[in-house]
């Protein structure tokens, strides 16, 4: 995947003689950065990819496609492909549609309750996907669900159920919406409002302005959202594993899990499914790259000053849009978090009733916090969240500059290397890393280090999306102004580029910290006693039927994640004001 230099613009400014001398040297910071970051990325990416391809195509040393034959003949392949495609398309549409609407609502309109909507938009992000699935199961189980149960009783049949392709797509769509929301927020914030203001002055209404001005300018962010969310939907594990399994709607990831959990494990078959997913993801990412190759025509953050503004929305549109937002808050935040809070106060779960309310107790919280395993899992998760987010965004800040500014001259390798983990299903990455790190003479297997490596490998593409999306919006003239004034590349990067990147980097840091807290599909294969993380604990308690305890633990995780989000938002606001 390559982001080309804008057409008609030189690929680099004409260097002075001293600059040419510096660029020949091996200590040139750009060269050094390319070499170091490339080395790190190769170490992270190459072994998992090697093991995946070897186990799939050369399991016994010679070329062998029997894994594909078993994968698509021993199981209903047509149903698998259909389920995966339909699930990904439907959930992506829901996520990106919701995310874009909510981002526009909070960043580009003067509609009410923006702070509440912003907070609620991030709630699915701070709730581990496994917990979100469990919450929706408790809400929408056809007979006993808090919402579906009474509705179906009135209708006399099980019309509303979570156990369907629609149900799982809806939950996945809600779960991924914050990701699209954050990407679109970054896109909308970086957009000069003067074009919209000009349209408004010339008499265009809000809908016309949105479709003819805002939406086209937001297209890079929208494409990025479709890419990220689409691939995320294809590789989703928790929701298909819990809801899809009961709905008998297996997708590729849940099928891989079934194969990996069986004995004897057919690694070649699992690799075949994974390879298909890789190809699909590669096609999606390549399509996006082709579109973004002319990225400079979307640059609106220039050397000139700008103030993000809000579009006035009046009349029936105002009431309608505000109602939609409030409904979203109810569906995405109040109901799922509410049912988890309720479940955390029950000795064992039963639908809310007068009898159930008489059993309210805080005993699940006592059980959780008196358990050394819980404290250890929480601590491990926090350590991994902070460290992986920091490492990733530090790498991505530099890598994004290289990719966007240097293009073919050094960015091509980094761009492709950071792309590769993006298409790895988390569960396959876990398997590949497990094989690699039990073999190499590094004493990290069974420790948090192997999990950190897994998280950095898995989430670096997401960090890159945030960093590159932010980088694309910054016109070169600001950096050129610094270079012309005699500043070194390093000083320009630290004093000019990094502050402008800060909102995107902070958004990326928040996202990675939060998804690290909820990560399950790789962790479940790599953890050992002492290195268990929060999602593992939740998964274990679900398989053991400890709904009250897992809800208590989940509510705690949500609270911690919300603190992270708030802190990040405050930091982002502060850095945004400093960069003006």
């Amino acid at each position, binding site marked *: 995947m390559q982001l080309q230099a804008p057409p008609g613009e030189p690929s680099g400014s004409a260097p002075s003689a001293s600059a040419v001398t510096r660029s020949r040297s091996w200590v040139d910071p750009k060269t050094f950065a390319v070499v170091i970051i490339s*080395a790190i990325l*190769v170490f992270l990416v190459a072994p998992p990819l090697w093991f995946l391809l070897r186990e799939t195509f050369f399991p016994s040393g010679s070329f062998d496609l029997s894994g594909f034959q078993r994968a698509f003949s021993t199981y209903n392949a047509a149903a698998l492909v259909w389920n995966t495609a339909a699930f990904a398309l439907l959930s992506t549409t829901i996520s990106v549609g919701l995310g874009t609407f909510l981002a526009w609502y909070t960043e580009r309109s003067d509609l009410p309750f923006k702070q509440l909507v912003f907070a609620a938009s991030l709630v699915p992000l701070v709730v581990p996907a496994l917990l979100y699935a469990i919450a929706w199961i408790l809400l929408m189980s056809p007979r006993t669900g808090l919402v579906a149960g009474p509705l179906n009783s009135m209708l006399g049949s099980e019309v509303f159920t979570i156990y369907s392709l629609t149900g799982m797509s809806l939950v996945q769509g809600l779960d991924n919406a914050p990701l699209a929301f954050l990407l679109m927020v970054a896109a909308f914030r970086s957009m000069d409002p003067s074009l919209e203001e000009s349209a408004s002055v010339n008499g265009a209404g809000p809908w016309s302005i949105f479709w003819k001005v805002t939406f086209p300018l937001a297209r890079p962010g929208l494409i990025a959202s479709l890419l990220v969310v689409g691939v995320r939907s294809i590789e989703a594990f928790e929701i298909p594993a819990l809801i899809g399994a009961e709905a008998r709607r297996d997708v590729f990831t849940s099928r891989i899990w079934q194969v990996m959990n069986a004995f*004897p494990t057919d690694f070649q078959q699992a690799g075949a499914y994974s390879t298909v997913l890789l190809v699909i993801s590669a096609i999606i990412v390549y399509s996006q790259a082709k579109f973004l190759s002319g990225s400079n025509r979307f640059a609106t953050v220039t050397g000139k000053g700008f103030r993000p503004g809000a579009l006035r929305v009046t009349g029936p549109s105002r009431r309608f849009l505000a109602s939609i937002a409030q409904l979203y808050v109810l569906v995405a935040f109040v109901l799922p978090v509410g049912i988890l809070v309720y479940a955390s106060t029950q000795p064992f779960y039963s639908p809310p009733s007068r009898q159930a309310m008489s059993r309210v107790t805080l005993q699940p919280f006592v059980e959780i916090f008196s358990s050394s395993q819980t404290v250890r899992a929480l601590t491990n998760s926090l350590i991994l969240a902070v460290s992986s987010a920091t490492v990733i965004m530090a790498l991505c800040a530099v890598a994004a500059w290289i990719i966007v500014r240097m293009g073919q*001259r050094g960015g091509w390798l980094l761009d492709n290397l950071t792309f590769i983990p993006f298409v790895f299903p988390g569960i396959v990455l876990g398997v590949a890393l*497990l094989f*690699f790190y039990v073999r190499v003479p590094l004493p990290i297997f069974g420790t948090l280090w192997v999990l950190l490596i897994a998280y950095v490998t898995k989430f670096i593409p997401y960090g890159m999306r945030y960093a590159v999306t932010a980088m694309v919006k910054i016109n070169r003239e600001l950096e050129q102004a610094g270079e012309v004034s005699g500043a070194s590349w390093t000083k320009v990067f630290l004093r000019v580029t990094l502050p402008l990147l800060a909102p995107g980097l902070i958004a990326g840091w928040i996202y990675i910290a939060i998804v690290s807290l909820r990560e399950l599909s790789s962790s479940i294969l790599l953890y050992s006693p002492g290195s268990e993380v929060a999602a593992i604990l939740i998964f274990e308690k679900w398989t*053991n039927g400890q709904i009250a305890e897992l809800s208590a633990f989940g509510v705690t995780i949500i609270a911690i994640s919300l603190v992270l989000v708030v802190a990040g938002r405050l930091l982002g606001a502060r850095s945004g004001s400093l960069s003006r």
Partner: protein
Amino acid sequence: MTRSVNFGMRKAALAIAVVMFVAACGGSEEAVTEQAPAPSAPQATGPEAGAAQTLEELAMNPSPERNQILYEAAIANGGEILLYVTQPPAEIEAQIAGFNALYPDISVEYYRGGSTGSLINRVLTESAAGRLRADVTQTNDHVAFVLDGQGLFLEFVSSEDQAYDPALRVARTVYPAYVNYWMFAYNTDRVDPSELPRTYADLLEPEWTGRFSVAAYSDWFFGMHDILGDSADEFFEQFATQAPLIAPQFTPALLPVIQGERDLTISTVSGVLRGQQSQGAPLEGYFPEDETVARTVPITVLRGGGNPEGGLLFAEYVLSVEGQQLLAERGRVPGHRGVDPDPIELRPERARLIDYSAFVPEEAEWEARMARGLGR
């Protein structure tokens, strides 16, 4: 000049990539399922060190002094034991508490495998890499049979050896901590006992469509075919049309019954049921009138772990009368002939143990047949 410098940078990046790739992926790499190299026999330590027995000798000699020797050796080995289990945490934690009441200086950690397959894969992977960490497994016959075939277990003679039925031992290296008999369980708030299905054939009646759950264990599926014989295929054809809720394990099959989403599960065992009942869940269990499927949960000691003496000491505790009584209190059917389950009716009159020597070689086929048989 700029072009040559840039080309040099590109070559450098490529060179780095190739070097890292070869370094990361080179070296000999054995297949995951390759048998672990035989570990060297560790020496027993402690006060008898002057005339020290090997661990294998100690394991085969259940003398009255053995536990003390094992205890001292376990402390000398670091005082930590690691268990690989598939039981509910509350149960294993109760066992650990009981063990620590006798041996407070030994720290016991456990890893709970998400499924039979995942636990087997973890042990084999670690063993193939020479990094086996566990000292004890307490899972089920399926895991034990497979891992025993890989030569991973230490053969030992329990001091309670005579109290254990050899027919319940799937291999010489295992002893059955308890026996799981498949049973039905229903939600007492939603189902009247008079309408309950009494046989597997009753499940095929229209009134039970969409009302029960089943845990998809392929060894159970094999066991059912063993019991039903020629009528098994026809039975499962109709079974799939009953739209059962298919769960991966016992507890996920029981949860929908507790919540009222299903009225009955045909896949539970007494210990899991008792655990939920103790929390107030409206459940009762019973055995079908047909012969029911059974398998044991054996305890084993791993040869390549970090503290095999400690592992053997833990196994001896579990197999002791005290350890077995603890399991009985938790609703399990003890493997020890001298300890009865509570209530005694938890041991059904008619049960058939799964024959793993016939099942394991054809496991992949049975997995596929089960997927079709349960309508997946």
